[in-house]
């Protein structure tokens, strides 16, 4: 239990101590070696890197060097990442074996390990993080502390103004003040739908009820999305602080964080954070000596995508099968166990403390007319800089993909990007310059979603893409309502038919009719958005659908059943190796003849391609 004075003291002392983390000209003889412990780097042995650093430092008896475990730096493609502060040297792709050299060359001798310095896309070596194009256009608010602090040390969070917003709220602001600040900031829900956060808080506050709840939706489920995961892994206290502020505002004394069990690091760090906050009296009874009491519990989700839907999530917390409820009533009126409940997503919460501290005006000065602040995207797919980026609303897709993302690898062309995961849609080349905000994305048939951003190059078949997302929704539909449970299955069956070369023209009409009605008739957001990937690919890439259906062709060759394997007679030497290896006897020809493939027998297994010593088969 710490008094407010003690917390102030911790902040003051730690702030000085940690200045070198954010100030390259910090007045210190200390050096901090920051080792990324996000999920990506952890799986690439960053814990072993940390261990090696510590061991070597101890062996060599080096003073004034500390090795710090941090959350994600964002540029996952270059992991494991090691950054040395205060000089901000960025080492990429570090292995446990490199530790010795880094300590010796960098720490002991004061020189940079040239071979490990991160390179930009054009090959130039960069000395510091800020020099990378990847970071130049970013603005980190939600990710502010990620990669800066040790998420397992509450003192480090406190040092960077942690729990200051909570103090301000409890000591200086009325509940209405908080609502007004959040409303004025223009913050909207980052979970996907973009409902104004202030409005949600106001509605939940207004509902009468002796028991209310605050819930954090950390059930991030879009394929390829890891925004919330990184925030929880890198800055868990930011979420706790915001939930407490929310609790104070709406009049709740209990919070639940619903997080996927597949996020073990996030769960572990949340647990540590909750324990530490309880130890300090920041969670519990009479926080900061006020009347306000609040506690938080973690609930683990078993990995059902539908549990990211707020009412299904509530059902799951209650111990029931994760199935959405029909709305209204909304959670604000009847949420957890029928009580008024405020539910926001991780990233939304990650913005709250800073809005309180820096003010609504500051926040609303960032972004576009209707979408304020920043948005975190998990950038993936056919793009050079795979990782986590946070950009002001209104940044164009072109800036994200080409400036931050470093463009498309292997000299390929950009074809489309998928935002909003299985609920979203694809954005084609012609819309690369559309500013990314809630309204613009909706207008072009996609949606903001939670922040997955998958880039596709010209080798990708858009019908297959739609099929991929439909496969996902078919298996993740909860099965409650008919349009989603059966309808998406039927859509998938039609897409399978098309990609197998059995499509008919009327199938395209059927897809359209099903999509339209599934969207209208489904109970929850999952069903209401599941057809989006099909509709948007049909909208922008109808020619590809028609090619599959009418010409039975897939120009990208992704649809294996439409692919045609042929032998180039110019290159074939008639060795017969392909023929001997063909498992179905589809290759004809005798002795030294040029071989031919009987397409009616060929199963497109690719054995012949692999076996041909003359590369004559494609």
């Amino acid at each position: 239990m710490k008094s407010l004075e003690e917390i102030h003291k911790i902040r003051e002392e730690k702030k000085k101590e940690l200045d070198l983390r954010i100030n390259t000209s910090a007045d210190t003889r200390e050096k901090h070696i920051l080792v990324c412990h996000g999920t990506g780097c952890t799986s690439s042995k960053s814990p072993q890197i940390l261990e090696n650093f510590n061991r070597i430092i101890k062996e060599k008896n080096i003073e004034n060097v500390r090795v710090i475990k941090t959350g994600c730096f964002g540029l996952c493609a270059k992991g494991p990442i090691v950054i040395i502060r205060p000089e901000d040297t960025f080492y990429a792709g570090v292995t446990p074996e490199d530790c010795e050299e880094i300590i010796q060359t960098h720490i002991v001798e004061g020189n940079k390990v040239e071979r490990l310095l991160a390179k930009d896309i054009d090959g130039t070596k960069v000395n510091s993080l800020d020099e990378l194009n990847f970071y130049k256009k970013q603005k980190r608010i939600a990710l502010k502390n990620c990669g800066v602090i040790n998420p397992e040390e509450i003192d480090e969070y406190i040092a960077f103004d942690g729990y200051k917003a909570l103090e301000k709220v409890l000591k200086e602001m009325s509940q209405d003040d908080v609502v007004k600040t959040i409303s004025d900031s223009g913050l909207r829900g980052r979970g996907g739908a973009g409902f104004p956060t202030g409005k949600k808080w106001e509605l939940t506050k207004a509902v009468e009820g002796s028991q209310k709840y605050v819930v954090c939706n950390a059930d991030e489920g879009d394929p390829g999305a890891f925004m919330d995961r990184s925030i929880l892994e890198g800055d868990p206290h930011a979420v706790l602080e915001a939930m407490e502020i929310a609790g104070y505002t709406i009049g709740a004394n209990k919070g639940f964080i619903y997080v996927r069990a597949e996020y073990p690091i996030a769960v572990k760090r949340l647990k540590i954070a909750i324990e530490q906050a309880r130890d300090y009296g920041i969670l519990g009874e009479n926080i900061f000596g006020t009347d306000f009491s609040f506690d938080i519990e973690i609930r683990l989700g078993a990995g059902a995508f539908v549990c990211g839907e707020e009412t299904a999530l509530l059902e799951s917390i209650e111990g029931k099968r994760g199935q959405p409820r029909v709305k209204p009533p909304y959670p604000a009126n009847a949420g957890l166990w029928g009580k008024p409940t405020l539910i926001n997503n991780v990233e939304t919460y990650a913005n709250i403390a800073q809005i309180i501290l820096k003010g609504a005006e500051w926040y609303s000065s960032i972004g576009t007319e209707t979408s304020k602040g920043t948005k975190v995207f998990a950038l993936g797919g056919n793009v050079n800089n795979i990782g986590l980026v946070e950009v002001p609303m209104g940044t164009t897709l072109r800036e994200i993909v080409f400036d931050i993302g470093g463009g498309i690898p292997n000299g390929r062309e950009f074809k489309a990007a998928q935002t909003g995961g299985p609920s979203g849609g694809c954005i084609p080349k012609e819309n690369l310059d559309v500013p990314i905000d809630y309204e613009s994305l909706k207008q072009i048939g996609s949606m903001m979603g939670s922040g997955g951003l998958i880039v596709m190059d010209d080798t990708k078949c858009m019908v297959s893409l739609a099929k991929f997302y439909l496969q996902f929704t078919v298996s993740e539909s909860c099965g409650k309502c008919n349009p989603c449970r059966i309808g998406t299955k039927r859509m998938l069956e039609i897409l399978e038919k098309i990609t197998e070369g059995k499509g008919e023209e009327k199938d395209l009409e059927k897809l359209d009719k099903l999509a339209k009605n599934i969207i209208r008739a489904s109970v929850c957001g999952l069903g209401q958005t599941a057809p989006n990937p099909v509709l948007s690919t049909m909208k922008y890439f109808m020619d590809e659908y028609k090619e599959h259906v009418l010409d039975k062709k897939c120009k990208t060759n992704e649809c294996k059943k439409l692919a045609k394997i042929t032998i180039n007679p110019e290159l074939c030497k008639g060795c017969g190796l392909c023929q001997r290896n063909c498992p179905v006897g589809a290759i004809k020809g005798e002795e030294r003849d040029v071989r031919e493939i009987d397409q009616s027998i060929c199963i497109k297994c690719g054995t012949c391609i692999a076996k041909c010593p003359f590369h004559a088969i494609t």
Partner: protein
Amino acid sequence: MEDNLINLTIDNQNIQVQKGTTILEAARKAGIDIPTLCFLKEINEVGDCRMCIVEVEGRRGFATSCITKAEEGMVVHTNTPAVVEARRVVLDLIVSNHKIDCLKCIRNGNCELQELCKRFNIQDIEFAGEMQSHKIDDLSPSIVRDADKCVLCRRCVSACKKIQKIGAIECINRGFESCISTTGENSLNNVNCTFCGQCIEACPTGALHEKDTTEEVWKKLQDPETTVIVQTAPAVRVALGEEFGMEIGTNVTGKMVTALKRLGFDRVFDTNTGADFTIMEEANEFIERFTANEHIPMITSCSPGWIKFIEMNYPELLPHLSSCKSPHQMFGALIKTYYAKKENIDPKKIYVVSVMPCIAKKFERQREEMQNDGLYDVDNVITTRELARMIKQANIEFTALEDSEFDSPMGEATGAAAIFGTTGGVMEAALRTAGDTLTGEDLPKIDFEQVRGGDGIKRATVNIAGKDIKVVAASGLANAREILEEIKSGKADYQFVEIMACPGGCVMGGGQPIKSSKIRSEVDVRALRANALYSIDEKSTIRKSHENPVVKKIYEEFLQKPGSEIAEKLLHTSYTKREKYNI
């Protein structure tokens, strides 16, 4: 009062309804019949099926009319082209995943999905595709589950979980693989199912139905060597007519007896006579226990679903159960002993068929304890629905039948026995006899209104022979659980408890005619059927079991007195702890 009314517009009609009314109810009031499938009033109000969607002006997306409350000034459109198309697509999808064997389906003609298809003029399936494929579960003696006909409306799940608080069935798996199943996907026979059959009553299609055993009855009827004796439970006579289009709650006792005779049964007896024996034994048992203050409260034992429930869930309370067999079992035992001897028929050549409103009775009759000298008391149990099917097969025009009387000597029964078929009836009948026995008088107090009516739990204190007796009648297993918890925790101060597994008692048993969701919304089926039983009671000349001359005679000639050694042997049984799961 004014404050409780709201005004709204549905399809351009101005309607005034009570606050809290759903759009669906409001529309029905205005003569607009919005289609539904998953909706089952007060049982399954979840909005899953999406058939009842409507457009509400100013609201994004369609509203689910079965659960959306009407609001002041609401403007609702139930039949816009968009709504109609969406509903049609939804119905098409449901049908595309439904095993269509209507012609050989047990629910042919009484299927809500079939009805919807007729209504939507479905002639072809637009979105055909892969269909669900499950094994039929017919291992239990009571219920058959054909998941390929399931439309996942969850009506059965809610009936089991919410009304009965059993939870034997639940939705498992996700997406297209979702289906209603049991723990570990085992047969209902091996899990915590009590065979109450409320799921069957809730099912809109043929996915859940009783195990039809009429074929064996037909065979026996054709066998000249066998004396086939039928007995009918009290609740059957007030529901059977419904299967022939008659009003709910019509007493068709006379027609039923005629039909049974026409079907070729050698004797047509009344289970009500058996019920009078049950009262004799149970009242006697109660007085003994009450006087000795042993295993009080005593709990009734005539509902086999209830018995399976307590054996599985509260074995420690089994000593509280009355040891009386249920009426048809007692009666079966008497037929194969007293009656066989009297008529000089080899009991091995007697085949007793019970017509019951219950599917748990199918399970009960084959319990090990239900035999005497190696012969089962009852050889076959068929439900009200199965009897109706037999009557139809036999070309009998039921509604045109003349009345006839049960065969004697085992066809005479009292009013007390008739009300066995409704919740509180056994209690009331027992109190009539216990009162007279304790006082030695012919008490004028016959009606015990406190234990009548549709409430799930009815507590009362009745004064008999100067003593206050606390009684409670509970129906539905959720209510039963509540009472048992009271007893277990020592909070209960009852002396006599009546429990029926089905909400409302046998009139609402799992073997009774299945009423559509719409009928169940609009009519109190339980009250109509129960009232018919009370009216039989009221019109009876003898309304106390111990005054039944047949009962008196058989005690004199054969059973000696209630609780005698022979009565114990034939009319009483025992119970054992039963595992919920045999898996």
